[in-house]
């Protein structure tokens, strides 16, 4: 008799708990670079709009895009553009991916604060991460072997950095860390370390230097912490942070996107360390009616 009572109580609790899932939950998956920012945006959005539910998870840009292609999420966070193979796959699955730009990022190259090398050219960066330059003394530092910290192949940052800076393959000796935070922690504790992270993770971090980068030898060294440099293109590793949706955004998806692009949303983007959208991308977004 007692056991029956306990069973009924458990069932009752389960039913109570499940009633909240009647509401439609927006699924957002993907980039580790975007995750903190989009989580904060959705928290504020949910506070202001009772009855709306948003779930944000990570896994890397590649994972998010794959989820969109397989119809497993509503919005894919991507810190890189979709590849043409991915777009073909999506269309083959009946998904029509549309890109919305929600913020700007300057990928920050970070080194340990004890390392007095604080500026590098794009060419030197490429050589370092391709594994062609293996000692800090080759770029003006101490005689220390260079320890590389990067992301894994599911990361949009990994792919973007490879295409923009390396134009080749990463060194097989590079440590593939699980996310931006892990790279920051690794470089913090390794005097010979160098890594790349989204600017939101580098801005407030202690124990690291953000390297200034020159697009060509002889050009000025620009910092990703400087909003003007990122906007003007003086900082060569700037990129738009995207969200991909299926088809023209409607309903709950559209409302959330509009919130992200509003003044309040862009203010949150700024608080999280990234940069608000420049005009050219505002125009791009407006083509989707946003």
């Amino acid at each position, binding site marked *: 008799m007692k056991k029956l009572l306990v069973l009924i109580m458990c069932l009752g609790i389960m039913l109570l708990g499940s009633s909240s899932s009647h509401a439609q939950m927006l699924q957002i998956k993907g980039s580790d670079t975007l995750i903190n920012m989009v989580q904060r945006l959705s928290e504020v959005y949910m506070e202001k709009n009772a009855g709306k539910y948003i779930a944000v998870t990570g*896994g*890397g*840009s*590649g*994972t998010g*895009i*794959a989820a969109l*292609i*397989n119809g497993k999420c509503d919005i894919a966070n991507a810190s890189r553009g979709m590849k043409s*193979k*991915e777009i073909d*796959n999506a269309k083959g699955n009946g998904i029509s991916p549309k890109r919305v730009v929600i913020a700007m990022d300057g990928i920050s190259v970070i080194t340990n604060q004890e390392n007095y090398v604080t500026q590098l050219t794009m060419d030197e960066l490429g050589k370092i991460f391709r594994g062609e330059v293996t000692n800090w003394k080759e770029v003006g530092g101490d005689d*220390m072997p260079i*320890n590389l910290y990067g992301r*894994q*192949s*599911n990361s949009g940052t990994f*792919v973007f950095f*490879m*295409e923009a800076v*390396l*134009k*080749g*393959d990463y*060194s*097989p*000796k*590079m*440590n*593939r*860390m*699980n996310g931006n935070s*892990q790279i920051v*922690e*690794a470089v913090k*504790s*390794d*005097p*010979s*370390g160098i890594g790349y992270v989204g600017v939101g993770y580098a801005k407030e971090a202690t124990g690291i230097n953000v390297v200034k980068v020159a697009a060509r030898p002889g050009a000025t060294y620009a910092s990703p912490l400087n909003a003007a440099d990122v906007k003007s293109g003086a900082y060569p590793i700037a990129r738009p942070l995207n969200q991909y949706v299926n088809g023209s955004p409607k309903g709950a998806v559209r409302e959330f996107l509009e919130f992200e692009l509003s003044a309040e949303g862009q203010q949150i983007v700024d608080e999280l360390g990234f940069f608000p959208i420049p005009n050219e991308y505002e125009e791009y977004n407006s083509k989707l009616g946003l």
Partner: protein
Amino acid sequence: MTRIKDKLIKFFFFLNGFFVIVILGGIFLLLLRNALPSFEEIRLTEFLFSSKWNPTSYYKETYGIVAMLVSTFMVTLGALVIAIPLGVGTAGYLSDVASPRVREIAKPVVEILAGIPSVVIGFLGIVFLGPIIAKTTGQYNGLNAINGSILLAVMALPTIVSLSEDALGSVPKSFQEASLALGASHWQTLIKVKIPAASSGILASCMLGMGRAIGETMTVLMATGNAPAMPHSFLDSVRTMTATVAIELGEVPYYSTHFYSLFAIGLVLFIITFIINLISDVVLHNYEKKVRY
């Protein structure tokens, strides 16, 4: 009536056993079915003998698993070197030396160790063990094969301790009494009589521990650095087969060559575990024939 009940119960147990075999066979077939299409594009010699794994390469995709195989075996061997002496020693302590009260506390504690989630252990590897390793070896970074080995040893230890202790406990008391009666000390009895008598169970526990270490994914993903290069020493960053599959499966486009190649890695893991179990079975069988009274 009882004849029918008897038959039904027998059939029920038969179904259960049959079902388990079906699941195992099914997993193998699924792996095979999804791994074979990859070999339409990848040459088997490249897969088995090349050490470059780079399916998302800028230039040409390469699919060689040798570096991963070496990494997996390095961390596993390292884990066993630590866990087997420690584990069998602990089992010997618990079964022969510890007082009943100590045993009552220690055995559940060892079993709780088995219940710690692998993410937590991986986390400890990054935050706690990594800096210690870096300091003691003079390296800049503690995310390497040694880190993975120590963590995997911690995970394999409860299995080895538990099963070895059970094996030692099931040695007939008459063996121990006869040995002591002949004048051997407790120490000599443990080492020269009980452990050899229980060796089949101890070997089985080591094999299970090895299986656990080979298949462990999350811990090695977090704590070994994941560099795909061929490792040259235990202080190098390594990437095991399990970590490779875990990293890449999330973002791979379904049904592409890359997708199928990950299943091929899974198939290799399955075959390795199968061979280990087969070998331990054969060894146990032969040993039992010798020791059988």
